[in-house]
């Protein structure tokens, strides 16, 4: 890295540096973010939840979305529905989606979270 020559350069540099601490800032502001929780544990892992989680990560990376965070949790016990994904918007209850595959993950992210449409597949129970 060379010498920063002006305030504008510094602001540009800051933008690229923010990536370094993005995950930590998300942690700081977690209550204000939409949280996608992928339930893992051994059973979730076997059902392919890790791929779903990684898929969310790479999609969010592509979109450059700042207000959505992907979290991982232990298996919820609803093994039959795994891969299980929870979505929690700030200030509201978490809703769950069962048997999530890559297409469903895209739908959850694009339609449900970003566009705010109601979609099929919400499990009729909440995880509190």
């Amino acid at each position, binding site marked *: *890295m060379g*010498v*920063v*020559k*002006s*305030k504008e*350069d*510094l*602001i540009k*540099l*800051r933008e*690229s*540096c*923010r*990536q*370094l*601490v993005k*995950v*930590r800032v*998300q*942690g*700081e502001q*977690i209550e204000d973010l939409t949280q996608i929780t*992928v*339930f*893992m*544990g*051994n059973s*979730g*892992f076997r059902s392919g939840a890790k791929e779903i989680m990684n898929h969310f*990560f790479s999609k969010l*990376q592509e979109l450059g979305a700042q207000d959505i*965070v*992907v*979290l*991982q*949790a*232990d*298996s919820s016990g609803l093994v039959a529905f795994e891969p299980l994904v929870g979505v929690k918007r700030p200030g509201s209850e978490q809703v769950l989606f069962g048997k999530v595959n890559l297409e469903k993950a895209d739908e959850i992210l694009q339609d449900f979270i970003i566009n705010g449409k109601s979609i099929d597949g919400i499990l009729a129970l909440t995880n509190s």
Partner: protein
Amino acid sequence: MQNYKMHMLVCGGTGCKSANADQIVLNLKKALSECGMSDDVSVTQTGCFGFCEKGPIVKILPDNTFYTQVKPEDANEIVTSHILYGRKVHRLLYKDQTTQEAIEDSKHMDFYKKQHRVALRNCGFIDPGNIEEYIARDGYLALADCITSKSREEVIQIVKDSGLRGRGGAGFPTGLKWEISSRYDDDQKYVVCNADEGDPGAFMDRSILEGDPHAVLEAMAICGYATKASEGRIYIRAEYPLAIKRLENAVKAAEEYGFLGEKILGTDFSFKVSLTFGAGAFVCGEETALLRSMEGGRGEPTTKPPFPSEHGLFGKPTTINNVETFANIPVIIRQGAKWYRSMGTEKSAGTKVFALAGKINNVGLIEVPMGTTLREVIFDIGGGIKNGKKFKAVQTGGPSGGCLTEKDLDTPIDFDNLIAKGSMMGSGGMIVMDEDSCMPAVAKFYLQFTQEESCGKCTPCRIGTTRLLELLELICNGEGTLDSLEELRRLSMVIKDTALCGLGQTAPNPVLSTLNAFWDEYVAHVVEKKCPAGVCTKLLDYTIHADKCKGCTMCFRVCPAGAITGKVKEVHIIDVSKCIKCGACMDTCKFNAITRG
């Protein structure tokens, strides 16, 4: 740039490092690479999280999991359980002190709930060795704002309006100090950062320098711009090797990026920073002594005026500020004076960092808005007194401050309130004492420190503190009289009025405040020749009560001095001439037959 999905932060403060935090980092990295997750999860060593009592700390983000007292051998489990399967390692989570429930999100911990971290904003958040993480947190933008779009007067005005007062102890308004310095013209002017933190039990400056060194460098450059100084020097004690290392790296990085050096950010402003190492003398925290030491002379104070603003380092106008004061500056510039004023009290704006130590559950570093009460600090954040004992007093302001007691607990903490109560803010050390602390002995402890640290230049301090200490020793040995107490008070007042510098002027404070608050305890020492707290060994005697003694021989066996005689099933007797008053017999007696009086 690498896109990590999770971050693991390991505390890299001096406290956690001495508890093997470096090995934890290595083990975590090794475990991650064994699971093939090195590209997904980063491991970063940050500055102090403040929760030193439960260190070493490992924090995982974005889910804010806070693992306490982590050992290097726990690394594998954290990775295989938490990182791989999302299953938190329950036994390492922080447990709430009252409910004993594990707290999953560190934001819900009592220790952090009431805190407001301004000076410590980046401690425990960024890697102090990576300037880019500081830049990500708006680092050096305050400096850029000042030198590209603000006049010197505007900068000074912001600092003045913010109401920031010197965090080193005296509480002098920082903006005013800058304004005075800016008035003196000279071919060379200096900015000095006082990092000679010497109070026993205080470590806020060290933690800031270790956790966020760039904040101090940026603030020094801003101060240099405002006061027309082109050179900054940090006076830091050589006893802080980690802080020195991180500062040296920070200076180097800042020079590489052009935030220090010639023509900063394309402007005409040039500023450089260098370090001077102190040898750890307490008196060198006093600004005139500090300057003499920096010049290569003996660390002895001189009379004021002239003040350093006019006649400082090498006779040139010099602005001296404390580390924590500087750490507040970049945020004040970025967020404005009004924002800073919105925290704290009318006469003491902003927040203050305190180092909690002594008989308190959560030993560590905290930052709260001024005006928070002692009760909130000690009981809510500090978690109360160790082992369920009773609170007796808290010493604020280190050896220069005084003791505050139960009745002062609801006092909002600010500069003026503490002085009104006979103590002072000092640099922010808080040593908590419980019912087992003997106040004359506490005063003696502080006097031993100041007497030893007196530079010896002025008579009131050199001889006065020695005499005070002698008097306190007499009292603690049971050889004092009521006259000794009067003499103690009189001499304290004389020293206060006549000593040359702050060290001597404040040295009698612990004596005076304990005399005022715990007069009965002093009287017990000199009249009844008793130490109510059971600390002063010369005043203790242990007695075995014949009616309760079963002759079990336990005390006979533990006595290291062979002072106890007696046969099985016969009453035992202590030979007072041999007894060293260690109390081992009392601790071991199962029948409460031994008492201390």
